[in-house]
């Protein structure tokens, strides 16, 4: 049985987030992605041009997440698998020229990257070129662009996934209409493949169990198997795609793991010089390999 995941849990103050994670664990999820939303990348782009007032700082993924040790205490997981969390950054792209900000290192530190296109132009850009994992379709309003099969196929070839959020419709009944119709249209266009259904919940009560969500997927026009995949195996594929994105054009990844104290001390010094966090995956090249070898010996 594949692990059930919810790849969109809006980040907020730690106490609330923690209660949401606990509810998610209780409902049977094995993994959630904590979503940090940056409203507009264009603001970030202009901030670099000396408009410091508007500057939005993107926090480090570890600041977004809940403390792992705290999460593991009072764990009620009966399946034996530990409950996991990962970080996700999502943004709305209105301006194609600001999209290059997605390639900046502080953004790429996040486990998952999602974009929400707002026009035909940005949808094309997201499907065709952007180096992201998830394309969010804003299902709560009438779509301002047409979902075309050619573009969908492009995105599917690149292993991107389309996201449908259900919580806004639970929060507000009037949004249900558009949610259902847009989701059905999307499912029709991509033939039920490469779709994930996520919550995007703000309060714990808006969260639904994984099988409830799978049943909603059936209502959106997915088959039963596809609907179940939309909360389990497709989500895993997203995570693997994200992994592949960070290790572009390489076959082996080198990861620093915590070593015994004696070696760690030597390692720590090196970390200060390079200034990169310990857990960051290094792209493989010769220099990196050598460096790590030195560190171990």
């Amino acid at each position, binding site marked *: 049985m594949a692990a059930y995941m919810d790849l969109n849990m809006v980040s907020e103050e730690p106490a609330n987030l923690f209660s949401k994670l606990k509810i998610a664990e209780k*409902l*049977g999820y094995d993994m959630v992605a904590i979503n940090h939303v940056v409203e507009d990348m264009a603001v970030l782009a202009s901030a670099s041009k000396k408009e410091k007032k508007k500057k939005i700082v993107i926090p480090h993924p570890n600041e977004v997440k809940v403390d792992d040790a705290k999460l593991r205490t009072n764990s009620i997981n*009966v399946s034996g698998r530990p409950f996991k969390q990962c970080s996700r950054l999502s943004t709305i792209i209105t301006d194609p020229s600001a999209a290059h900000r997605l390639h900046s290192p502080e953004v790429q530190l996040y486990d998952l990257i999602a974009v929400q296109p707002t026009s035909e132009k940005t949808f094309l850009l997201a499907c065709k070129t952007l180096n992201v994992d998830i394309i969010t379709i804003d299902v709560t309003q009438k779509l301002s662009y047409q979902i075309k099969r050619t573009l969908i196929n492009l995105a599917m070839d690149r292993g991107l996934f389309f996201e449908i959020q259900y919580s806004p*419709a*639970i*929060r507000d*009944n009037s949004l*249900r209409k558009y949610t259902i119709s847009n989701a059905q249209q999307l499912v029709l266009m991509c033939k039920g493949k490469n779709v994930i259904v996520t919550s995007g919940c703000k*309060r*714990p*009560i*808006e*969260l*639904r*169990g994984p*099988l*409830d*969500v799978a*049943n*909603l997927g*059936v*209502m959106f026009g997915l088959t039963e198997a596809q609907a179940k995949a939309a909360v389990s195996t497709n989500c895993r594929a997203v995570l693997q795609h994200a992994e592949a994105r960070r290790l572009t054009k390489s076959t082996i990844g080198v990861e620093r793991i915590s070593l015994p104290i004696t070696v760690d001390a030597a390692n720590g010094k090196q970390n200060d010089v390079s200034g990169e966090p310990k857990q960051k995956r290094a792209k493989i090249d010769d220099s990196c390999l050598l460096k790590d070898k030195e560190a171990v010996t």
Partner: protein
Amino acid sequence: MHWRPMQKHWRVGGHLAVSHDFLGMGMYEKQVSKGHLPYCYLKVRLDFEEDVDPTDIDIIIFKHIVLQAVQSLFGEAASCTPIDVLKYRQTNREAILRVSSRYFTKLWASLTWYSCYSEQSCAFRVLQVSSHLMALAANSRQLSLA
């Protein structure tokens, strides 16, 4: 009705399996599908965001909420199918619902979408689902393996 090579399993529920020696070509299994079982059973719990007095919601109000949920999503036509509350425990608002298996997906979907009763946020938690009532007697996910 269709033929398929004999496998070492027998189906229960709506299937009838009979083995035959088909033209000396080995064992074949004749499967006759009788379709779904007539009913599906759901064990659900109604959770509120804030604490609610348990006496507030009795079985009649509970049934009303379920019907309201179906009616708001699928309208009059779906809400007139028989949905029965077989058992209701008022202390934690847990109930066993019975519905014809044709409308099972619809009922489940409308319970999922339901979010607000008299301006209080609430949610249906579907605990167990089965086409056999007996299966709801125990929940393997709540077994403690101490």
